[in-house]
């Protein structure tokens, strides 16, 4: 019986194998890049909102504390999105004619809540709790970034599990004194490691890497 393949086919097969390997590596790289891309993680992307609310103006310009609006952050899993009543506490007197605030006034008149676009949205299988984090010395800006510099809200961290674990494994690298938790100007000191270790002991912070700590 004659040979099915000509000997030259060997070269073709080798080239083919090479092509497959390169393609697979490329696909893998594309997958990785895609996963961490802006498209997927939405990091550093400003979100359009029904009212162009500026944290920069309210936090940096006016010096209003985070908790003035996010009232439940110390006692609940949710930090709390303020009801229109909170906005109108000032805006029934200040900027009463501003067209940009018409949706707020309408919401107050009709009792229909504003529909904000959620910026920090964890998957439903993660049970995150704000109150325990702020009690243990995790500052707002550690996760949410320099909110006081954001005209419109955006995410600065991926919120991926690997990112959470960086701190859950080594809390001493990130925690700060409790009285600085709501400060937007706090920066880790040069002796953060030392300070962190002391706080971890003082606040009895446990490194939580058990799956069921967050996934229940």
């Amino acid at each position, binding site marked *: 019986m004659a040979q099915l393949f000509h000997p030259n086919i060997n070269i073709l097969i080798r080239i083919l194998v090479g092509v497959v390997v390169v393609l697979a590596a490329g696909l893998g790289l594309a*997958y990785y890049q*895609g*996963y961490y891309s802006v498209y*997927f993680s939405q990091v550093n992307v400003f979100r359009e909102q029904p009212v162009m609310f500026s944290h920069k103006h309210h936090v940096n310009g*006016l*010096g*209003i*504390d985070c*908790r*003035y609006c996010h*009232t439940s952050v110390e006692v609940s*899993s*949710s930090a709390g*999105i303020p*009801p229109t*009543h*909170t906005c*109108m*506490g*000032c805006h*029934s*007197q*200040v*900027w009463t004619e501003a067209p940009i605030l018409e949706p707020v006034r309408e919401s107050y008149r009709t009792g*229909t*809540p504003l*529909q904000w676009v*959620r910026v920090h949205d964890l*998957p*439903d*299988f993660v049970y995150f709790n704000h109150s325990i984090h702020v009690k243990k010395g995790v500052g707002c800006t550690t996760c949410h970034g320099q909110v006081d510099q954001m005209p419109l809200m955006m995410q600065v961290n991926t919120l991926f599990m690997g990112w959470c674990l960086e701190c859950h494994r080594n809390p001493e690298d990130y925690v700060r004194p409790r009285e600085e938790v709501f400060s937007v100007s706090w920066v880790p000191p040069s002796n953060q490691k030392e300070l962190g270790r002391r706080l971890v002991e003082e606040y009895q912070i446990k490194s939580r890497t058990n799956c069921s700590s967050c996934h229940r």
Partner: protein
Amino acid sequence: MKHYREPSIEAAETGKPSRKGLVFLAGLTLLFSSCRLDMHDQPKYESYEASEFFADGQASRIPPEGTIPQGGLRQGELLYTGKMDGGDSELFPFPITQDTLVRGQDRYNIYCSPCHDKVGTGRGIIVRRGMKQPPSFHIARLREAPPGYFFDVMTNGFGAMFSYSSRVQPRDRWAIAAYIRALQLSQNASYGDVSEEDLEKLEEAATE
């Protein structure tokens, strides 16, 4: 006539899935691993999530009137209304300690200082931006006002000021009332009110 495929004898005997099946599954997993998001967005409501079920589109429901949340039974007129014998209470519903004052200071700085400013003269940043100026806490009328009066204003609002009852819990409102008392004392203190030890500290601070 058979309407199903008989399981392969090989798999049935060894109890292992066929190699072909495994490869196929692995391929599928790789292909679609980032596409399935139904566990990310489960059919349950997160806080503030919109609802297609309720007519008003809100997943968070307003409980029927008169509902008492667990642990929310409000017994004790003084603690929750600031009233006593039909008038503003002259007394606090619980003893005021250093901790109460620290808590009061903390809450005051968050919720009150934007308008009333940190010492209570009523020239906070929001006032400088057009809010109606509140009276200073250091005028005679307010220096003589009972703590129950401040509690009532925080609870129900007054003039241009909205109610803070949903944001500041009753015990914190009393703590703020106590801190306002402390502010009033601080702005009307004389040299003789300060203990010798504290005077030394003051002088030290002044010379620094």
